[in-house]
Every structure is written in C-alpha cells, then in structure tokens.
C-alpha cells in the first residue's frame, strides 16, 4: 500500500516535472509554427509562444492517470477522475476559444458543460461526490440541498471566467492562483484537521495544480516566454471551482478570490454585460518609459489594473506585485474564515 505522503509527493512532482520539461519544447514548437503573440507591454515587442494551456492540460491529465493508478481507495480514484474530466472539458473550451475566439456569452454558457460530471455524480450509486452542506463561518454546516444543486452549474463557469479576466500580464494569473491554492491547502488542514497521513483528494487536486502552475510561472513570469491563453486560465479557474465543491471549501475560496471577483464586477458593470476582450477598448496604454497607465477612455472596461494605476503609472512587474499583495490580503481573510468555520464544526 502506498502511503498518503508518497501520493502527495507524486501529485506535486509529476505535473511539475512534466510541464517543466514540456514548456521548453512547446515554446520552440509554437515559435517554429508561427503560433505566437506580441507582448505589447515590452519595448522590444517580443514574440511569445501562445496557448501554453495545452501543456498544462496534458500534464494534468497524465498526472491524474498516475494518481488514479497509485491510489487504492476507489472513491478517491473516482474523485480524481471526475476532477480531471471537469478541468479537461474547461481546457478544451479554452483551446477552442484560443483558435476560434468564442462569443463572450457562448463561452460561459459552454463552460456550464464542465460542471456536468460533478452534477452527474448526484445519481452515482456511491452517492454524490460533493456535499450539499457548505460550511459557513460562525454558522457551521448548512443544509442547502436544492439551492446547492441549483448553484452547481455556475460553480465552474464563474471562477473560470474570473481567472480568465485576471490573466492580462506576465505571471499575473499564475502568481495569484498559486497564493489562492496555498491558502486552500492551509484552510483544508485547519477546517478538517487532515494531516499528511490521511489521504485527502482535495490535497491531491491542490498539489497537482500548484505543481503545474509553478512550472508555468517559470516560463510565464516577466519577461514571459509563453502565454497561457484561455486554455490555461479556463483550466485553472475550473480547477478552483472543482476544488471548492469537492473539497467543501466554497466560502474560503470565494473570500480568497475577492480581487478576481472585484475585477470581474468592474468589467461586467462598465461594459454592461459580457463582451469579448478583443472587442473592448483598451483600458491601459504604455508611457514613454514603458510603464502602464490608464487610457482614460470612457468606453474601456474598468478593471482592477485601472484601480491599481489610479495613483500613477506602474511598471508591469509592479502591477503583478500589486495583484499579489491584494491576493495575499484576501488569503489572510480566507484563513480567518477557515478558523471561524473550524470553531463551530
């Protein structure tokens, strides 16, 4: 029997190793095939390989298969399988979006399909993989059976789009999401008192995504050598939603992604609905010394970046750092939430 600690080590290192090796080859291949984007926030306007999400998806699928083979508990195997299917569906929608540029309304609608495996588990003979009794701070366990089932379809599409909207600068998505994942890991330990000796699928999911994101960050951080594209942001966003539901960390993750939600609120309210990113007016422009400043265009969406640079232009690295500071702060609040949940359960 493989011990839980070894499963956790495998869950973290396999995706880290696979994507760490995969990215250099992928970057070369994409540049050779002419599939690249121009990094408009740099003076040199470098060519950067696109659709890095493909490596993320492949790494996660292989890692999930290995994890299923290593784990012996059938329920955990089923959960890993469902998690893998969910994020793969979101990833495929992302790849289609990268190639065809989906309509801004069609994309979230299609993402509803990604939550089907989780909803379908309601009718599994082993019982649903989720627990319709979310944990609230100070209240504890709540029974929201019908309401929970009604909200389930949005569990993937909302975080997937929120993460997609924050993926605008080198390393911004990876940095902030890694912080959220670390928070989820700590919150999981605080709330459920699970240490490394107990095999917990939530920890496996968190470690897998963190591993793949660390490798991605190496190539996506400033100055980026690869762009993740929608294929990466939708996959990672979907994984956050799946972790929230399967791991009963709904409220903790909502609090941890407050900056993401604020960004989405700003965009949706300013463009009055959902609009494809490429069809929106640009909210930022570059100064002569290559800092990011606001365009003051009334038609441009109001974003978190706009709020960060309200007091003056900032370098791209500093904007990403600001996102990091905001996410660290919301993560501290999320950990306080976890403690307030632990106190009452």
């Amino acid at each position, binding site marked *: 029997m493989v011990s839980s600690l070894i499963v956790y080590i495998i869950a973290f290192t396999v995706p880290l190793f696979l994507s760490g090796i995969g990215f250099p080859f992928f970057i070369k291949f994409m540049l050779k095939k002419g599939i690249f984007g121009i990094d408009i926030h740099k003076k040199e306007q470098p060519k950067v390989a696109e659709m890095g999400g493909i490596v993320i998806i492949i790494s996660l699928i292989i890692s999930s298969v290995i994890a299923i083979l290593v784990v012996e508990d059938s329920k955990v195997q089923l959960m890993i399988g469902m998690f893998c299917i969910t994020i793969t569906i979101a990833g495929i929608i992302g790849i289609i979006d990268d190639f065809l540029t989906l309509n801004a309304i069609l994309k979230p609608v299609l993402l509803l399909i990604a939550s089907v495996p989780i909803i379908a588990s309601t009718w599994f003979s082993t019982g649903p993989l989720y627990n319709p009794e979310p944990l609230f701070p100070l209240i504890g366990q709540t029974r929201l059976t019908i309401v929970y089932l009604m909200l389930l379809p949005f569990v993937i599409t909302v975080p997937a789009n929120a993460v997609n909207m924050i993926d605008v600068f080198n390393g911004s998505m990876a940095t902030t999401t890694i912080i959220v994942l670390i928070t989820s890991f700590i919150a999981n330990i605080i709330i459920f008192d699970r240490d490394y000796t107990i095999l917990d699928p939530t920890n496996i999911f968190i470690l897998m995504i963190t591993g793949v994101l660390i490798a991605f960050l190496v190539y996506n951080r400033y100055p980026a050598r690869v762009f993740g594209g929608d294929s990466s942001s939708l996959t990672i966003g979907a994984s956050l939603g799946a972790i929230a539901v399967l791991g009963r960390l709904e409220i903790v993750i909502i609090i941890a992604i407050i900056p993401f*939600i*604020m960004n989405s609120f700003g965009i949706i309210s300013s463009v009055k609905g959902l609009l494809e990113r490429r069809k929106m007016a640009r909210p930022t422009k570059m100064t002569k010394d290559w800092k990011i400043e606001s365009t003051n265009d009334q038609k441009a969406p109001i974003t978190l970046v706009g709020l960060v640079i309200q007091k003056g232009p900032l370098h791209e690295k500093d904007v990403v*750092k600001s996102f990091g500071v*905001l996410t660290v702060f919301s993560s501290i609040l999320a950990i306080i*939430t976890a403690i307030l949940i632990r106190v009452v359960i």
Partner: protein
Amino acid sequence: MRLHKLTPKLYRVLGLELFVFGTFIGICAIIDSLIVGFPENPNPTINFIIGASKVIISIILIAIWLYVWYYITKRLMVSKEDIKEAKKIKREKKQVKMQKKKEKKKNIKT
C-alpha cells in the same frame, strides 16, 4: 518597486476587501443568531415553511451583500472626476427634459 512603497497605493482596494469580508462575517453572525437559532415547530408543514423562509431570507441577505460589493467596486473603480462629469451630464439631461416639458405645457395652453 518595493512592496512597502507599493502597498500604500492599494489602501482603497485593501479597505474594500476588508469591508467585503467584515460585512460577510456580519451577515453570517445575523443568520446564526436570528435565523438558524429560530426554534423548530412540531407541525411538519409549518416547520417546512419556516425552513424555506430561513433559506430565502439568508439568500436575500447574501444577495444584498453581493450587490453592495458590486456597487462599491463600481464606484471605487471610477475616478472622482468621472463621477463629477457623469453627474453634470445627468443634470444637463434633466434640465433639457424639464425645458421640453415646460414648452409642451406652454404649447397646450396656447
């Protein structure tokens, strides 16, 4: 830029995060003390109605919280000058409407 120089630029957003968190915990406290603590009724029909009402009230509270969060985020992201300009345009539109109404009234009288 160092973090200690960067953080003061973010105090408004950090404040909003704290506000969002604080109000959420406040709502949870209200739900816990007033709604969850509401005694159950031995009659199953009444008990069902009470249970459903509890859920609906809680959802309304959460919806209000989400709307307030949305509204403040929207206001915070718009600069003071933009708000002034928007108010000015609104005022001007109102004045034009009023003038049109007055003219209509005059026309009817004549």
